[in-house]
């Protein structure tokens, strides 16, 4: 166990936001989950007891004579927000005083750094480059991510759960988000920061980042495993596999979704449903690609002269 190496990575000024992000993320997921569970409990209670529901207006707090039915934004919300703003200001000031910008040597085009890492918030994207060709990982996927995020309000037909935390009422939305954000995005940033060393090789935490390290790894394309040599057939084969994924995956997801969220399914139009399905399948494709890469050393599935997937 190379503690020195570990400490060097953890203490690098570049990595401070990520170090901070991990406990913060865990804490806020815990906090949100805790409140959601409390609300869910209340919701069950209120659903079973309509009389109580009448007297409860501020969700978790039961009714009290003399309590206002609703409170004003000013001052009751804004004073808390302002307090938060002050605390954030303090944190930022202390941070900026104690840690200088991690500037490096003058750029030398003849000698690039190794590993060359993007800013921490882009490390997820950079990690994606391992699994897809630059056109897919660098252009198509980020665009899809942004469009996918923009699309959410338009395909979210669930009227419940706005303004309070709940798990029961928004199970699909929350688990999809947690999967996309925590499992995919944050963990890829984590991998990019802590796991990827010189040569973008995989180093387990505590392993020495040795510039001379050599590893033996042969990645093949899926068509090659099946002995397909002609480019045309490779394209057709890849398209068939990807198509099959969307077809079979779509059927499976469709089955699951209809069973677990029948209300949502009914509320959604065909357009909304198919958009949701497309983005969902693409999102799930990413970890699948990561897994087949790491487990089966498969580089690309679908090879065409224009893009590789």
């Amino acid at each position, binding site marked *: 166990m190379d503690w*020195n190496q570990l400490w060097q990575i953890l203490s690098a000024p570049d990595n401070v936001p990520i170090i901070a992000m991990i406990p913060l993320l865990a804490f806020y997921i815990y906090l949100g989950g805790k409140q959601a569970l409390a609300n869910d409990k209340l919701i069950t209670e209120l659903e079973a007891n309509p009389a109580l529901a009448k007297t409860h207006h501020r969700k978790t707090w039961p009714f009290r004579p003399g309590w206002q039915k609703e409170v004003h934004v000013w001052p009751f919300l804004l004073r808390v927000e302002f307090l938060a703003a002050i605390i954030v200001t303090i944190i930022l*000031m202390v941070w900026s005083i104690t840690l200088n910008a991690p500037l490096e040597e003058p750029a030398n085009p003849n000698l690039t750094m190794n590993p060359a890492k993007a800013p921490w918030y882009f490390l997820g994207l950079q990690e994606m480059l391992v699994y897809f060709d630059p056109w897919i990982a660098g252009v198509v996927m980020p665009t899809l991510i942004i469009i996918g995020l923009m699309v959410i309000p338009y395909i979210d037909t669930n009227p419940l759960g706005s303004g309070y935390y709940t798990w029961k009422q928004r199970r699909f939305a929350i688990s999809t988000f947690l999967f996309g954000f925590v499992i995919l995005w944050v963990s890829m940033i984590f991998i990019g920061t802590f796991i990827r060393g010189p040569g973008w090789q995989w180093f387990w935490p505590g392993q*020495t980042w040795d510039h001379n390290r050599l590893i033996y790894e042969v990645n093949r394309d899926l068509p090659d495993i099946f002995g397909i040599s002609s480019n045309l057939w490779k394209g057709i084969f890849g398209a068939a596999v990807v198509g099959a994924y969307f077809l079979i995956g779509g059927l499976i997801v469709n089955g699951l979704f209809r069973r677990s969220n029948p209300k949502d399914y009914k509320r959604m139009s065909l357009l909304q449903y198919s958009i949701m399905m497309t983005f969902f399948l693409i999102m799930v494709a990413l970890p699948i690609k990561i897994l087949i890469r790491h487990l089966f050393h498969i580089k690309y599935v679908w090879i065409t002269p224009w893009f590789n997937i």
Partner: protein
Amino acid sequence: MPEKPIPENDPIVTKSLAPHYVICMVILMATLFWALWDEDFGQRPWKAFQHEWKSRYSAFLKTARTQSAESQKEIENSPDYQKLKQDYEDASKSAEPRINELREKLREVGAKILAVQDGPGHFTDRRAYVTAATYDIETTSSASSKQSMQRDLDAYKAKPSTVEMPDGKVQTFKDFAALEDAYNELKNERTQMSAELGELLKPVTEKKELMDSYLADHMVSLTPSQLLNLQNSVESLTPAIRQINVNEHAANLEREDSAQIVDRCESCHLGIREPVKLTAAAMSLPGEKPDEFARAFTSHPDRDLLRIHDPEKFGCSPCHQGNGRATTSVEKAHGTYEHWLWPIFRPGNYEAGCQICHSADMVVVNNDVGWVVSEGKDLFRQRGCMGCHRYEGYDKEPEDLLSIAQEIKLLEQQKKDNLKQADDFMAQADKAATNEEANHLNDRAVALKVENSKLDLRIMQLDRTTKSLLQDMKKVGPNLKDVRLKLNKNWIPVWLKKPTDFRPTTKMPNFRLNDEQIRAIAAFVWQSGLTDPLPKHKPGNAAHGKELFEMRGCLACHSIGESDQMQGGTFAANLTRVGEKANYDYLVRWVHNARERTRPYCPYEKKDIGPEDYKKKGLPYVFDLDHSKCPNDGHELQVQNMTVMPSLRLSETDAEDIASYLITLKKKNPSDYPDASFMDDPKLKEEGKKWVKFYGCFGCHEISGLEDEGRIGTELTTEGSKPVERLDFALLTEVAQRGGKEPITDPEDLARLPEGPAKEPWYDHKGFFEHKLAEPNIWDQGKIFSDETEKLRMPNLHLTKEQIRALTTFLVGSQEFPLSPSYQYRPLDYRKDIQEGWWVVKKYNCMGCHQLIPGQRTILMGLARYQDAQEQLPPKLLTEGARVDPQWLLRFLKNPALNDQDTNRNGIRSYLQVRMPTFSFSENELGKLVRFFQALSRQPFPYIPEEVPVLTAKETEMARSLFSSTAAPCLKCHATGDPAHDRTATAPNFLQARGRLKPDWMEQWMLDPQAISPGTSMPSGLFKRENDHWVFSGPTPPSFQGYDKDHTKLLVDYILQLTPEEQRRVASAMGRSSAANRSGSSGSNASGSGGHGVSK
């Protein structure tokens, strides 16, 4: 929430956030103050330095002042100073009344001017109004408003002004013009009076200045008043960044080569340029060890360097490196962090900074010895580093030769083509339809032939250059084509195993060869050697040989004896065991003339030329510098051994004697070496060639068939600016980055590390070079190899700590030039000659015998033989350029015997036993050397000798009397050509002065020889200054009455016209008088009136 009781009142509405706010605001304010502090001090640590500087430096100055006040008092009491003071006081007293009067008047006028000038409605006020109004009128477009405004202005100007004068009177000026006149009048008056005051004060201030400068000149340190000024400036110091900003091409920022030096080093290093010498101890707090501040405040240790390299032009970082712009921490400013590519040079390698600009200099400092970087540069050549590593400026000849050979080939091809084309044209001309056309074609053919004659001339020129280059080209190691003639066959494998075992100080490095490699290499070298017969020599007299060896100066380069018994120089081989390896007949040839080759080598055909080639052309088999053309193709041959070893012009018998002596030097018998007949196995030859090529043996040795091989190592010209990532620390990268365990374990190699075993991280250039030089295969550690060829090839050069430090300094400073090219030291004037000359001087180890730098110790000076015979040492060359005529020097360097027949002697100093050898310099190097000596003495070049006036009979008579004066009998020490006399002579013959010495120098020499050549036996004080002339100190005959010219000049002219007859006459006349003396005491007769004896 059921678990908690529900509060009575609505918490959101009733709960107060005041405490939260209070705490947060307090923290926020605290961070605000922290930010302000950080802004002002945290990010500006230099402020603390300046603060500390203020208190420590003023304390230092205070103590310095009391000390200097005492010495000032002493100087003030001296009569000279008192006189100056008296002058000053007189002058100021006489001028005083008028000065006071003028000052009074000036004050009055000043007050008047103020009165007229200031206040509402007075001059300044009204003038402002008038000029503003005039501007309005000028810029108004409408004519009518112009007129009306002009009217208003005129009306304003016409108004009167009343001014209350300083004496209380009220004066009225009738309009603006009157006011202006009065004002100008007053100002004129003041100017006149000021000028008069200045005139009056001038003599007084001049006297005062004289007085002050006398004081300043005679004070050892600064005067109290200067110190007081310093102290005042220190006390009024306000914290500020002190920055040197050099921007040579400010107008053209886009130029890449613009020198943009921004150095803020002096923000902390405040004492660097202070006029007083500050040491760390002086700047420490009383009773404490020097701390961080004290070390930072010292002044620059070498003020001379700083004077030459004015910081205002050079800054700090070009020499020292580091990040001159950074001010936020010591680490950042010194650039000793990961992301700065040019960390500050460490104490052991400070001089690396010199190399950055002075890469073209072999000797960086002309008048000082002991410069580490110069030593590194010298070592790089001496140890043959450039045999494997290209380095700009080193060993250029092979490359130049190659390109010239290419050019010659091209030119010859072109010649052939031209001839062919000319023939074509002629043939076409014959068939031409018209006369005109035929003529035209003919002309073109002729033009081509003319072109060919030009090409011929060019080829001749190139051949000449080739000759020079071939002569200049030297190899560090011996010629291996001669192994069969020279060596004891059985010794070779033993030597290859580990050369230092046989000869600890050898230049040959240890190659870590295994037994197979040794067998193969030995076989290849043996089988590729020449087998020509050597002339047989009879055994000589070894005892005489030993004497000659010690006498003739061999020890200036070679050494004898091992470890603490060692005597002599390290420039060439240690000969303690030479008898075990060498062949007697070869040694005789070598000692007689080391440059003599067995066979000439033709670089054009790339083969050794033998008698058969000469025979084919019917030419005699003779090759030397005068017969250096190849019989086959007419190009230049390599006719010399590529060694720097010169010829000592010994007779054949002397050479035999020396060789006989050398052959006795051994620890065991040559026959005791184990048999190595495997070397004749032809099967091993190919294998051996492979290894010879692999290890690059041809970098230092001449080897048959491998004459044109390139260098095997990496180029080192800019190695110091290679990114550290490009230096392959191999498996030791982590070790070097983190420090800790020292990877070198071999105790011998460990002892080579200049800083000892690494304790701190050494992942930088210094660490890399030092470790690599200490143990060149260190980066192989821990690696697994399938083949010997994968291993690092660099051999162990068995360097000492100091040598590694010197080489590291040189390499660390070998950088790509970061500044504008004008910063590079590439002078075009006489300094260029000096620069080039040092390369030659160092190449041939001139400094082994001659002193060229004051304070430089030659090898011979250190030998026991010369401790009591200083006059037997070779002459010092401190002022050689001023001493001799360059034409003569050229002749002398070509042939130091100055004689074509009798060469077994010294041309000038026949009394010296040590011999000035013949180096067979090329035209090129001769020119460089002659120019070097002229330039070193700042002599104009070319030199045009001044005409020596012909002396009248009377003058000759007078001069003769000086020349033969018993007070200074010149011919007693100077040689005369009479063998009996010359045995005891310790100075050159006067007859050689003409055409050799420069008259100016001769005069200077007679006046003060000690200043020119410290320790010389030439007496001083022969002449004294009388009535502005140099007059002989001893008794002069009456004929000198009324002679009012310099006696020195007279004597010089006489010597320059001296004829052998005249000299003989004088000598015989003197001989009679001194014969009596000589029989008495030999010490007393030389003492002249000056009392200067001639030391023997």
